[in-house]
């Protein structure tokens, strides 16, 4: 029985898939369940320690290697980034979106991750605005207009999830182009299309539309859910966007979250300008006023526009009465880490770790976790090129992805004051 299996495995690589025939004869190729184990034998990575008990599988070095690859592709050089973004999300609701290769359906997966993306987007880009467009029956509808409040977008998206008909990229691009032409010149115009279909049904010449978008400086990116399509690739190449196709749900999540941080700005695309903005004060708890967003009387806890004294409920927003953009200083501060990025830490190679002259810390500077590996030998670690403190791999990932401060550099007094000063 075993020999039979070996034989089949050897000549199984070149055979076709054939899911229907479970008990097939010799030389017909691998079964479906055998194919999943042909390359990856996860049981071989288990190890036993001295007493015969199983060691837990250490995924840390794997995740860290993944993170380092991601960091290398995003260079640490200070590139000018487009911080004030006007982004349209185009969701394909044609009949291809009902396919179930993503569970429960492509449309449901897209909606779930778009909701998470919208929240992450406003977290990282508080001064930007998002709009939603759907393509159904070959026609593009604008679901929500460009706005800065995540709740309204999420609510309207979740309410309208039905798919039918064909999909048309040209109609979507035309609609988005008309909306994006109305925005101020200092904003960066972007479109992100989630494409499930394998074709596009257009009323005219899509190449003309692509050239129109390119001339209006709209950066179009596409995330495909089925296969690579030439027209999407061409669109992204022409407008300077990025095209990627998702392999599965977790890959899709990774791809969509890559669009949350601001992309490198192409200098001619947005004209730098000084934008007038207001910093409203919080009203006293006992004050009663009619708020301009809900048109009803509210007690306490709102903000007063400094120019027209109208009351607004939350920030950031645009005053409905006089059109002034209202923000608070933490909103600006959220974008400062894009302007002042921290340097990636250096990996300490094994040769450095075994060098007896090198002073190695016993514990990570940030979290005090022991940096000793098995048998009290120095374990893997990274060090900051500026302050030379050593950190564990988990702190490295946390510092660069969330905190954006090096604890070592912040715990040392600089002899010269840093250029950025406020308050």
């Amino acid at each position, binding site marked *: 029985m075993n020999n039979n299996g070996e034989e089949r495995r050897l000549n199984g690589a070149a055979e076709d898939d054939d899911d229907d025939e479970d008990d097939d004869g010799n030389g017909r190729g691998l079964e479906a369940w055998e194919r999943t184990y042909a390359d990856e034998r996860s049981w071989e990575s288990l190890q036993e320690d001295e007493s015969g008990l199983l060691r837990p599988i250490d995924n840390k070095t794997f995740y860290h290697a993944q993170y380092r690859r991601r960091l290398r592709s995003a260079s640490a050089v200070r590139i000018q980034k487009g911080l004030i973004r006007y982004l349209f999300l185009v969701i394909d609701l044609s009949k291809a979106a009902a396919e179930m290769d993503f569970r429960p359906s492509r449309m449901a997966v897209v909606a779930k991750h778009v909701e998470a993306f919208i929240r992450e987007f406003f977290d990282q880009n508080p001064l930007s605005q998002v709009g939603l467009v759907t393509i159904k029956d070959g026609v593009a509808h604008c679901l929500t207009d460009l706005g800065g409040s995540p709740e309204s977008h999420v609510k309207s998206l979740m309410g309208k999830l039905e798919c039918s008909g064909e999909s048309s990229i040209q109609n979507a691009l035309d609609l988005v182009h008309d909306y994006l032409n109305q925005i101020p010149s200092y904003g960066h115009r972007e479109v992100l299309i989630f494409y499930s279909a394998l074709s596009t049904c257009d009323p005219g010449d899509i190449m003309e539309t692509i050239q129109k978008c390119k001339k209006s400086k709209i950066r179009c990116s596409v995330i495909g859910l089925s296969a690579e399509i030439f027209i999407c690739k061409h669109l992204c190449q022409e407008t300077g966007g990025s095209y990627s196709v998702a392999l599965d749900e977790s890959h899709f999540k990774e791809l969509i979250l890559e669009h949350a941080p601001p992309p490198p700005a192409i200098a001619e695309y947005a004209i730098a300008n000084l934008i007038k903005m207001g910093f409203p004060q919080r009203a006293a708890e006992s004050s009663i006023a009619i708020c301009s967003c809900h048109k009803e009387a509210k007690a306490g806890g709102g903000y007063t526009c400094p120019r027209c004294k109208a009351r607004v409920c939350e920030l950031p927003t645009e005053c409905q009465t006089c059109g002034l953009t209202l923000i608070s200083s933490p909103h600006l501060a959220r974008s400062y880490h894009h302007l002042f990025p921290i340097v990636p830490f250096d990996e300490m190679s094994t040769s450095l770790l075994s060098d007896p002259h090198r002073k190695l810390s016993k514990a990570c500077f940030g979290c*005090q976790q022991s940096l000793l590996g098995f048998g009290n030998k120095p374990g893997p670690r990274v060090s900051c090129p500026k302050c030379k403190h050593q950190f564990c791999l*988990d702190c490295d990932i946390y510092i660069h992805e969330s905190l954006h401060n090096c604890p070592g550099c912040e715990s040392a007094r600089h002899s010269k004051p840093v250029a950025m000063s406020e*308050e």
Partner: protein
Amino acid sequence: MASAPSKLYADDVSLLMVLLDTNPLFWSTSSLPFSNFLSHVLSFLNSILLLNQLNQVAVIATGYNSCDYIFDSSVSTSRGLENGRMPALCSNLLQKLEEFVVRDEQLCKEGSENGLASSLLSGSLSMALCYIQKIFRSGPLHPQPRILCLQGSSDGPEQYVAIMNAIFSAQRSMVPIDSCYLGSNNSAFLQQASYITGGVYLKPQQPDGLFQYLSTVFATDLHSRTFLQLPKSVGVDFRASCFCHKKTIDMGYICSVCLSIFCKHHKKCSTCGN
């Protein structure tokens, strides 16, 4: 902007990170002597550890030139001066604090004591957040972390960006930052930190009774806070200051490239030249 929504905490086990300000430039001019302050804090730490068997405490000293861990309750401490009068916790903490202050003083560079005497709050906040991340990774049953800043030194404007980064990271991880400010004027950074992360900011009216403030306001765990009326934040000023005159403005001009704030319209941004 909205204050942080409070998470629903199901358990009352807490991890308290205490950031202790040891800036000698502040303590030499404070009405509350440092030794009295320490005795209030030590009693408070003991009471935290008594509230629940699984509670953990870690103390980071915020110095003038450096920051370091001086106490960690989860590490089994070596026996200190167990002479029956002082428990091992106190002696360990005091010993490490003594060593830290000596080291901190030695790091003083000539001529660096100009301007306001600020301590390195951004450094100790960053270290506390890294430690908290380690606790989050330790498994599904972990204590609920929070940070308490015992600060007296005034805000250092050069630390603004770093402190805001730390505040946003704490907000994302849902870690409240409480502050007990012992200096003379209010600290805008700590007020913003507590407002954004959903913590409590307090400036005690009578610093001599510090232990009472600490044990009534800051000792409760996050689960029980929903049943208490804690001091509310009032008058948090979120206005920005302009880069040219450093005065607070309520309407200004923002450069779309580098986000510098100006009070008057210019043709070119002086920071980035656009």
